[in-house]
């Protein structure tokens, strides 16, 4: 201790900066300023993050909400018997022979009549066929389906809600303007004038669009008819596959690794595999699906079953990791108690540990499912895109095996189409997708809150 005593005592420097605590010296002021700056960076970083979140949400809502309303033209349509059923016998086979080309003029005429009957309406369009551009190309087909379903109404005049063309719809939603129409051969300024007047007369209305939620996809040039319903069913079947496979496999794997696995090479190998699979890019799982399920096993392309299998493999690591965390959270004393009364290890796990871990496992599974529901990239490779999902599956087997799309793949498909009306649909689809994800996450949060246990 000699080194310590030497410089002490007399030669201790009298503090040069012996100063009052009340005054802040310059250096401290500078340091405090640096402190303030540093805090500002932090606040700015969080501000930027939240700012981006707000922009994102605002653009989703602003661009997506219009997809939930649709413009319709409400007019009485005269179902001309001479055109629709020339034989007059209402035979379904004969009725079917009349194609949509037969129906289109009826609609044109119906609108034209309405235009002429509306008082104080002026327009330069003087022919019934000029009305065609205001009407969706799908409208005749919709009318035809209606007539085939209700053959007795032929010959009568029926109030019908006709789907307006996407340009008219876009005009109602301020997406189409008079300037943009100048170069557009799908619609003329005269039509827009007419639309303005028909809106005033109450013939053209914007109404809530159930068909967007429940309907099927439509071809490239009929955005007004496209809906996300069929893709939703595709997603549903995929999630069913994911749930049915990943939950039991994930839980079984976690139980083995957490409760039974001896510490050896094989266990380490599995552990390393799981943590790496959790970080493998999702597109690689798409390649796996393509090569193994489609190229090798010859399963049908675009089938929700294949999509579900791929997403299962992708979700498994997530579920295993969260399940293991919930198993680990059950204290060893529970296992000891069960073993102490003579239960086998298997009984201790299945009778005591697993039920206690169940809420945590469920929460993890829901979050894994939500992740799978929003995943797009691997589905592109197994043919879930480019496919126009216009048919509802007929029954359960067809739901799994027939080509279908999924919500995110449908949104991607719409985003690639040329007509800007499809962008609106894509945003609208995102709102629906996010609502699903939000619901799932809220359920997970409630489960966690409700059953959270502190040992």
């Amino acid at each position: 201790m000699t080194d310590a005593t030497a410089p002490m005592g007399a030669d201790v420097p009298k503090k040069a900066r012996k100063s009052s605590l009340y005054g802040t010296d310059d250096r401290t002021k500078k340091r405090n300023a640096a402190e303030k700056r540093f805090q500002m960076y932090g606040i700015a970083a969080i501000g930027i993050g939240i700012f981006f979140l707000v922009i994102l949400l605002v653009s989703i809502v602003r661009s997506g909400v219009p997809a939930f309303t649709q413009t319709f033209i409400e007019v009485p349509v005269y179902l001309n018997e001479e055109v629709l059923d020339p034989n007059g016998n209402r035979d379904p086979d004969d009725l079917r022979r009349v194609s949509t080309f037969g129906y289109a003029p009826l609609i044109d005429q119906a609108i034209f009549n309405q235009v002429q009957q509306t008082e104080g309406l002026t327009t330069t369009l003087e022919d019934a066929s000029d009305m065609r551009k205001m009407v969706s190309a799908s409208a005749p087909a919709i009318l035809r389906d209606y007539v085939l379903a209700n053959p007795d109404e032929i010959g009568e005049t029926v109030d019908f809600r006709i789907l307006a063309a996407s340009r008219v719809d876009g005009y109602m939603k301020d997406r189409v303007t008079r300037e943009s129409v100048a170069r557009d051969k799908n619609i003329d300024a005269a039509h827009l004038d007419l639309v303005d007047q028909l809106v005033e007369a109450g013939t053209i209305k914007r109404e809530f669009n159930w068909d967007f939620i429940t309907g099927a996809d439509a071809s490239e040039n009929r955005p007004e008819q496209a809906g996300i319903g069929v893709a939703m069913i595709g997603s549903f079947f995929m999630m069913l596959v994911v749930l049915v496979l990943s939950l039991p496999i994930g839980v079984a794997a976690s139980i083995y690794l957490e409760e039974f696995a001896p510490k050896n090479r094989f266990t380490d190998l599995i552990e390393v595999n799981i943590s790496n699979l959790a970080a493998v890019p999702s597109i690689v799982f798409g390649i796996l699906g393509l090569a193994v399920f489609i190229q090798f096993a010859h399963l049908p392309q675009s089938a929700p079953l294949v999509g579900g299998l791929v997403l299962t493999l992708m979700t498994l690591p997530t579920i295993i990791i969260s399940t293991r965390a919930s198993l680990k959270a059950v204290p060893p004393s529970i296992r000891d108690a069960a073993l102490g009364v003579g239960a086998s290890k298997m009984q201790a796990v299945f009778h005591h540990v697993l039920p206690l871990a169940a809420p945590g496992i469920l929460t993890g599974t829901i979050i894994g499912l939500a992740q799978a529901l929003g995943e797009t990239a691997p589905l592109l490779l197994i043919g879930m895109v480019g496919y126009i999902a216009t048919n509802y599956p007929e029954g359960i087997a067809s739901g799994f095996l027939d080509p279908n799309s999924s919500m995110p793949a449908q949104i991607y498909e719409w985003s690639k189409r040329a007509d800007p009306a499809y962008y609106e649909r894509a945003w609208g689809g995102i709102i629906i997708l996010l609502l699903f994800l939000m619901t799932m996450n809220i359920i997970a949060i409630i489960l966690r809150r409700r059953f959270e246990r502190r040992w």
Partner: protein
Amino acid sequence: MYDTPKSGVDVDAREVKISARGVQVFYGDTHAIKDVDVEIQDKMVTAFIGPSGCGKSTFLRCLNRMNDTIDICRVEGNINLDGENIYDAKVDPVQLRAKVGMVFQKPNPFPKSIYDNIAYGPRIHGLAKNKADLDEIVEKSLRRGAIWDEVKDRLHAPGTGLSGGQQQRLCIARAVATEPEVLLMDEPCSALDPIATAQVEELIDELRGNYSVVIVTHSMQQAARVSQKTAFFHLGNLVEFGETGQIFTNPEDPRTESYITGRIG
């Protein structure tokens, strides 16, 4: 090598360094310190003793406003350092802590080299004009921390590689390097073995030549060995405060006596 602590020091002749009046501390709704008055004198060692949870560490942390870092902690009353209220709005806790250094229960060297550990305080407070100056401060501090001989050949090795006792002396040297006037020590030996404890106690006794030292300890023997004055805390109250010899041989309060004789605590 040194005198028994109790003798040879004229306790009352020293100037008062810190005086606390009516100090109350609340943790949320818990009343942790109840109306404590205490005066800590310069150039001597004051020990705070008492059973666990009696508030002695909490009170110690009030003396350099370390409690500010805990959101739910609230301090009332007056604590004056050289006559200036350290809880005054004009006081910058950063400047205060440079004057009132602190050594913690577990040795907590930064994961840096020994040199950088010591140089950290002088650097942030701007005590060195140049590299040579800093080298000198580092050497002087390590000497005062009674660890210079052990580490002078490996100043750039990580501080975390030292033994527990060495780490704690490094931490004391680190606290000394900012030239504080008061050194607060929160159970500095509780994580150390007996030999390292003896070395640190020896160091504490040497430090009192320059600083006012306040030490929290749960070891009564340690308080008796190193301190000149002792305060006994119990359930957030300051039960008794006086000369160490007095407290240990002839306590006034029955609670103090119970604690010293091992009936409570």
